[in-house]
């Protein structure tokens, strides 16, 4: 089963929930930190990284000996990442999406592709036996999606394995690339107007991708009826509520996850997993 964890709003506790769930699940578990712009799940799961691989996009390189400067590549490129300027060909790596259209369309076969490194994939195992993988986007690179896609491919899961995907905040392309293909989406929210606003957006992503979803309310501090009403009206089950608790905050600040702060949470996360299994059967 593949479970993705997203939130809309940042800082609601995606990684707290994702890492704690991973620790409560029966092995084998594969955990992928797909928040490649700011990966932090390793702080809570503490894997020993053993392998790494550079990743990026295949960008065009033009052989000006063969090029007739016909401009078909520039016409084909939707991103204007290649231009033919008189008798010169110019590639803009930062605009290239690596689609390969220019290479395919070149009548002279003057274009070859070379890897433009955007980041690195790293994998290892935690002391508790969780297989852990993450992508790290290089600073200054704004396109996270290729790194996320390649992380998911690189760490391909076994059919019987439980997989946890920790998404980035927001609802844009990196989140879609992370949650696509998941069997279930956990939406972590906080009981604030901001949390609820972004939960609505994240729930739309789940609906658009036809992924069954449920909500975990983090830092619950008294009643916030708007959230419960919204979840009910959208048939989004609230699967777990985590209280606003100083002991948890102190633990997180020391790099502990919920099951380390309070082992009682193991049972809570197992029952969360069973609820998800039940919801996926329908």
């Amino acid at each position: 089963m593949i479970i993705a964890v997203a939130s809309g709003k940042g800082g609601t506790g995606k990684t707290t929930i994702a890492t704690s769930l991973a620790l409560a699940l029966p092995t084998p578990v594969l955990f992928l930190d797909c928040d490649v712009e700011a990966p932090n799940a390793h702080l809570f799961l503490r894997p020993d990284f053993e392998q790494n691989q550079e990743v990026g996009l295949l960008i065009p390189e033009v052989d000006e000996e063969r090029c007739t400067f016909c401009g078909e590549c520039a016409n084909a490129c939707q991103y204007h990442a290649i231009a033919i300027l008189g008798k010169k060909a110019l590639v803009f790596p930062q605009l290239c999406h690596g689609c390969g259209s220019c290479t395919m369309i070149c009548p002279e076969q003057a274009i070859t592709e070379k890897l433009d490194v955007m980041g690195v994939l790293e994998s290892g195992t935690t002391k508790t036996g969780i297989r852990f993988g993450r992508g790290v986007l290089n600073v200054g690179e704004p396109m996270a999606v290729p790194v996320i896609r390649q992380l998911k491919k690189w760490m391909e899961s076994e059919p019987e394995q439980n997989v946890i995907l920790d998404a980035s905040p927001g609802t844009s392309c990196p989140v879609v690339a992370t949650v696509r293909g998941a069997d279930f989406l956990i939406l972590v929210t906080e009981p604030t107007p901001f949390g609820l606003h972004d939960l609505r957006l994240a729930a739309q992503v789940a609906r658009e991708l036809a992924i069954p979803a449920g909500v975990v309310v983090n830092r619950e501090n008294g009643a916030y009826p708007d959230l419960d009403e919204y979840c009910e009206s959208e048939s989004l089950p609230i699967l777990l509520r985590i209280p606003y608790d100083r002991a948890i905050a102190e633990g997180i600040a020391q790099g502990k996850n919920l099951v380390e702060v309070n082992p009682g949470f193991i049972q809570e996360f197992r029952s969360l997993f069973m609820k998800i299994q039940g919801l996926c059967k329908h």
Partner: protein
Amino acid sequence: MKIVLTTASPDIESEIDPRFGRGAYLLVVNLEGLEWEAHPNPGVNASGGAGIQAAQFVTDQKAKAVISGDFGPHAHDALNMGGVSMYLYGDCRTAREAIESFKEGKLRQVGAPTKSDCDHGHRA
């Protein structure tokens, strides 16, 4: 000699458009007889690479110079490689005024990008 100007409307009497990649029209002017042609800027609604698209247009026209209000890094690199000289409007308000100033050699030529970034986010 052919030059290109970014303009707000398709006319040689038009006000200038200070944006290069996203300016409304590209006015192609032959300096000898002042014949002109206005083309809608192909990059005006592009999600990215507008400056490159406009630079591609300018080089395809075999223009030797281009006048605008700003040249971003991509547009600058592309025009530079295409052998097109870049000039700034300065105080000119209309295309005709800019053409006169250009002929008199009063416009400032650009040797480097005049702004560090374009108007929306993309890689670097």
